[in-house]
């Protein structure tokens, strides 16, 4: 009976409150009641909200962490791909620049026919001792390369093809001690011979004695004499001049126009046939 009474009391009170609330709402007087309730329970509501937010952030962080890790891996992979692509594009850009310069050079030399080749000098063909200066290029007999063909870049003369294999050729550089190139001083037209030195330097020898034959800064070109190389290929520039009155000739040290330590792509002049020295035939006496 008591339980029932207690239950009935609660039922009556709640229904009454509901009715009161309905009446107040219809009459427009519920606002102040609601305001009072919020003011009373506001701090508790705020505390609970902050707790909920923290919990939500913790749960969200774990989820975000998983998402971020996955995203990070994707981005790292993308960055790696972009780095590789960037390197490849930079190489292409550099090669493009070299080829453009070579093309400009080839177009400005309409009398010659060129065959391009990559230099693999530091990969396979570098001479394994300090006595010979030579490189290996990736063009051979299958590409129409023959021994004796000159090798150049847009900067100037590199050397001459020495030995030819099916897909590779060995090029003796002009800095090799056994290399000799007929040359002339562009300004004065004096002729001499450019020879390589054991230390890789270039020396212009057999210059005639006299005033104003050669000076520091003079440009040295191939003269074409002897038929070993085409004319007017850049060799280098004079750095020092050595002239002594008691010697027959004066000589000069050159700075090569080509940087042999940075050779990447070279051109082989394929339509130049070097003259080879021949012993003249002695006619037999008529009987």
């Amino acid at each position, binding site marked *: 009976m008591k339980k029932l009474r207690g239950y009935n009391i609660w039922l009556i009170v709640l229904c009454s409150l509901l009715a009161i609330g309905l009446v107040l709402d219809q009459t427009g007087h519920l606002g102040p009641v609601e305001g009072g309730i919020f003011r009373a329970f506001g701090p508790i509501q705020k505390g609970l909200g902050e707790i909920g937010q923290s919990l939500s952030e913790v749960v969200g962080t774990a989820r975000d962490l998983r998402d971020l890790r996955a995203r990070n891996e994707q981005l790292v992979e993308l960055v790696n791909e972009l780095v590789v692509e960037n390197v490849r594009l930079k190489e292409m850009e550099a090669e493009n620049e070299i080829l453009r310069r070579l093309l400009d050079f080839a177009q400005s030399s309409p009398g010659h026919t060129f065959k391009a080749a990559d230099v693999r000098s*530091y990969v396979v063909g*570098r*001479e*394994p*001792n*300090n*006595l010979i200066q030579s490189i290996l290029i990736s063009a051979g007999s299958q590409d129409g390369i023959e021994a004796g063909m000159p090798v150049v870049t847009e900067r100037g003369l590199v050397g001459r093809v020495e030995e030819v294999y099916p897909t590779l050729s*060995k090029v003796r550089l002009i800095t090799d*001690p056994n290399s000799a190139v007929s040359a002339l001083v562009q300004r004065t037209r004096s002729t001499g011979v450019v020879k390589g030195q*054991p230390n890789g330097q270039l020396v212009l020898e057999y210059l005639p004695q006299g005033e104003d034959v050669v000076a520091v800064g003079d440009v040295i070109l191939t003269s074409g004499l002897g038929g070993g190389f085409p004319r007017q290929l850049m060799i280098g520039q004079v750095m020092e001049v050595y002239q002594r009155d008691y010697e027959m000739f004066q000589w000069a040290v050159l700075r090569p126009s080509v940087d042999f330590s940075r050779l990447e792509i070279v051109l082989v002049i394929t339509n130049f046939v070097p003259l080879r020295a021949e012993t003249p035939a002695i006619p037999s006496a008529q009987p």
Partner: protein
Amino acid sequence: MSAMYYVIVPVLILLGLAQSALVPYFRVFGVTPDLMMVVVVSWSLLRGWKAGLIWALIGGLVLDLLSALPFGTITLGMVLASVSAGIIIANVYHPSLPVVLLAIAISTMGYYLVLMVGMALSGWSVAWMDTLSQVVLPVAGVNAGLAIVVLAAMRWLYGLIGREELRR
């Protein structure tokens, strides 16, 4: 023949390729160290001239195949360098490091002398004094410096081979 040689042959081939393709990047005083020659001579100094002779033949043949010099020139130079170094050191009581390095330097000069004679006999033009002063002397010093590192590695290898032989 010891099984060790089946390992040494590919190693010396790799060394020859490195001498041709990799070592030129490391020029010191304008010259390239002769890694193969230093390794071969160091082995001769440690194990005697007979052991060094085999290494010199293998290493020399590898370099001859890669070189434009007359075939056999480098092999001959390497054989003479390693054998002479081995014989000289064998006759020195308790050789010290400076003596060993001096042997390397002298072997280098002998090696290049043989190469230059081979070139001259084959009709190549050789600037003797310039080559001696600009190439041979500097590379003798560079090779002696390189030998400090190479000898340590060879000594370790010598110890390894010695233990293998004792086990047999």
